[in-house]
């Protein structure tokens, strides 16, 4: 009896797990996920501020608004991109000028397809710097978040619009609104 007990102690039997069914189920799962796997372009969302009801572009007014509707206005008209500034406390928009004192303009095709985005970002960053500088001179409760408004003609494609919104975001603007070109606005140089 002692020999039998020792034999049982010396030769322990390993539990045998049947792996085959588990492998079958794993293959089933893998087949399912392989068949439903579809690599595609990653879709993301673009930050954009909707035009609020009743909003129009800042036109010269006898009663200047307490908060400007935008800090910078970028218009794409007939193949030319021009820039206008609206600083807090200023009664009227002013053209955005370069070091030579002349209004900054970018020339592109009428559809905006070959716009120089690097140069655009440079100018937008300058506008952002001006807006931030103007904010510093104001008390904290009067400071506003820099906003950018784009104005487009009706036939500009969404691909160009999204590209410009993208560049505005790259320049640091979180509040960007696309708006139709206002015929009444005569400013911008």
């Amino acid at each position, binding site marked *: 009896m002692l020999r039998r007990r020792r034999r049982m102690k010396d030769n322990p039997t390993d539990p045998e797990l049947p792996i085959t069914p588990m*492998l079958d189920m794993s293959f089933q799962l893998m087949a399912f996920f392989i068949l439903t*796997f579809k690599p595609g*372009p990653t879709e993301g*969302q673009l930050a954009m501020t909707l035009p*609020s009801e009743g909003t129009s572009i800042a036109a010269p007014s006898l009663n200047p608004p307490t908060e400007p509707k935008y800090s910078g206005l970028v218009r794409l008209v007939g193949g030319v991109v021009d820039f206008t500034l609206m600083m807090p406390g200023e009664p009227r928009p002013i053209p955005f000028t370069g070091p030579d004192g002349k209004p900054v303009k970018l020339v592109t095709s009428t559809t905006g397809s070959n716009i120089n985005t690097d140069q655009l970002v440079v100018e937008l960053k300058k506008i952002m710097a001006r807006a931030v500088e103007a904010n510093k001179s104001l008390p904290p409760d009067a400071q506003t978040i820099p906003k950018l408004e784009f104005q487009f*003609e*009706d*036939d500009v494609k969404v691909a160009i619009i999204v590209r410009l919104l*993208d560049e505005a975001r790259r320049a640091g603007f979180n509040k960007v609104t696309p708006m*139709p070109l206002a015929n009444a606005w005569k400013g911008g140089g």
Partner: protein
Amino acid sequence: MSGAPPGAEKCEPNLTPLLDLVLQLVMFFMLCANFDQLQKNKKVVLPKASQATAPDRTISVQLLVELAGPPKPGESADPSLPAGRGKWTISTGSGPQPLQGPTELFQKLQVEAKTYGVGKFADPNAPANKRKTKVAVILRIDENVSFKHMNEVMTEVSRAGFEEVQMRAIKE
């Protein structure tokens, strides 16, 4: 008669490494799986944007508005649609429904705004659980759509009172 000679050991292949690799593959495909709840129109070619961020996953109700591009040169135009315009659809959870124009879009959004208590069309009699639901309008606009139509859609979405709007783009 058995083929194996008497006293021969049973040969079993080692399945453990095979199982390990299979489970690795299953984990990989499980993590890559993306069960999108929206039924998207595959014909809508989204514009590209390098600054596009991951879609907000905290939105519980998504109202999908899709604007297909205009017919390409040589393509036959749909006679039921206005000239130079593609198909517009809205999906509110029961499949895509065609839209004739901005007015119909506004009407449908108005119904959803009342249901979920959004904006100034919030219905004080709406059930409390629906009022706390986060609702967003997802705009999937083809890159060849003109700004005129994009602006029409954005204006109606804004008029309906929706503030949560996601403009979709392909992340570069």
